[in-house]
């Protein structure tokens, strides 16, 4: 009963708490969404995100234990996101975790949010076949990584500016679709034709990404063509994003021979991305790993699972915020 980790994730706008065992089985996973808080702003408002975490965190912890049917004495340790993320949000989770750890006499380990995302593909069941190439596409991050094993991770390339999810949100706002933009932009894109030649930023420059130019191009196009059908704008934008993501993924798979390709992060929910990735994997003869959508977005189960990696390697990172954390660090 003692091989259970309490995971806490508050890096952005969701207060998430989960209890997970070393096999990746989820005993409970509680996510308090702040969508209603941020909807009116068309994006995440950091101050209000931190305020919402304060009121949500303890009820979420309490609920997680209630659902799992265990007590705090049954857990081995607490894993909490230490970065990257919004500083005000991270501090709530980190300080809540350390308070709990002291009171329950349990170790508290600071976890890299990005490593959590990579591990999300193995929640509930082992899906990734190593070595693997992983595409992380979310509201805060866009990167490609190579995993020789669950703990040997190499960063191949990341975005120099906006993340894919952020770009989706901003284009969604330009199109008057509200927040979050991803699902609605994808839906609208299905109804249009990709006839507008939006740029594919840095598509031929290795494994790095850049999306701010694409976002600006959409804005400029809409200003110059106010009557252009929004369906076609969405379709052209989504096609540009897909072209970049798939071309970079193909290049990574060529350069880093892999047995599987996984997509994690909120944008993994994109039907267009899933279809394109399926085609790519068939062509490249690698297994496609797509975790259930509930584990693609920010959650604490992935943080708990990553905590086992840290403990197995005897890596004890202090539960202190680090906004500059990169994928290759613990």
């Amino acid at each position, binding site marked *: 009963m003692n091989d259970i980790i309490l995971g806490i994730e508050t890096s952005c706008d969701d207060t998430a708490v989960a209890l997970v065992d070393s096999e990746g089985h989820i005993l409970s996973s509680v996510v308090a969404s702040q969508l209603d808080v941020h909807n009116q702003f068309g994006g995440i408002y950091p101050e209000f995100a931190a305020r919402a975490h304060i009121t949500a965190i303890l009820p979420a912890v309490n609920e997680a234990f209630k659902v799992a049917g265990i007590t705090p004495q049954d857990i081995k340790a607490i894993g909490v996101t230490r970065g990257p993320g919004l500083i005000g949000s991270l501090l709530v989770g980190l300080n809540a975790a350390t308070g709990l750890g*002291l009171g329950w006499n349990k170790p508290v380990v600071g976890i890299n949010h990005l490593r959590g995302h990579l591990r999300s593909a193995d929640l509930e069941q082992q899906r990734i076949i190593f070595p693997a190439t992983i595409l992380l596409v979310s509201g805060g991050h866009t990167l490609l990584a190579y995993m020789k094993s669950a703990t040997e991770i190499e960063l191949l390339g990341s975005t120099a500016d906006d993340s894919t999810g952020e770009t989706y949100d901003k284009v969604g706002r330009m199109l008057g679709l509200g927040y979050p933009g991803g699902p609605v932009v994808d839906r609208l894109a299905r109804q249009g034709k990709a006839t507008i030649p939006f740029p594919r930023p840095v598509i031929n420059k290795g494994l790095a990404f850049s999306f701010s130019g694409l976002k600006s191009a959409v804005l400029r196009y809409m200003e110059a063509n106010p009557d252009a059908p929004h369906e076609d704008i969405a379709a052209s934008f989504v096609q540009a994003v897909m072209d970049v993501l798939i071309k970079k993924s193909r290049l990574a798979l060529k350069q880093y021979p892999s047995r599987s390709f996984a997509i994690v992060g909120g944008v993994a929910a994109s039907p267009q991305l899933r279809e394109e990735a399926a085609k790519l994997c068939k062509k490249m003869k690698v297994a496609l790993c797509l975790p259930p959508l509930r584990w693609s977005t920010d959650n604490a189960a992935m943080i708990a699972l990553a905590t086992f990696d840290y403990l197995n390697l005897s890596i004890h990172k202090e539960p202190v915020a680090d906004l500059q954390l990169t994928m290759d660090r613990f």
Partner: protein
Amino acid sequence: MLISGISTSSGQFALLLGENNQVVYDSSELEKDNNKELYYLLQNALTACNKKINDINHIIVDTGPGGTSRVRTGIAFANSLAYSLNIPVSPVSTMELAGIDAYSRYGFPVVNSVKSIKGNAYIGLYRGKNEDVKIKYGRLEEIVPQLVADIDRFVVVGAHRELIMKLPALAGKTVIDSCMQYGNARIFIEKSKLFTGRGLLFPQFVTPVTEQTI
């Protein structure tokens, strides 16, 4: 009864332990690096006092207003520590803390101000004798004269002491500069009887003072 007092809203953290209204440990005086994490400060405090975490019976925490992230840091820690130990946590605003502290020195009502954004401020009035603190949010030059309309003499604490003393609308009143930027968190321990009665046990917990909550 061992009480832990936590104040994070001001320039530096203060983590205190106290018994029988006496401070037995004050991190703001004893720690070389008092801006360390709260768990580190508390572990040091317990070790220094030869106490265990389960010896703590009550927590008193500063709820701001003040540095927003700093206030939440203290509250998140205090709430979860209280939850994990199944002990009560009492909220005390910085306005009340500063008010009680300055009143005990001067014996006059206390006006405290904390900077906010876009030219706004939090302004608190503590009339003394354990009365509730009145907190307002907005323009200093509008709120302070309203708050002290029926008071002839008062003490100023906080970020805008000089500004308040020069307000034309306060002409004829005696305004005393306390030279205090913040209240001293030792009040949490020395006057703990004022606060322990309001202790919250989960599912209740402490939330920060913000412009939305006053």
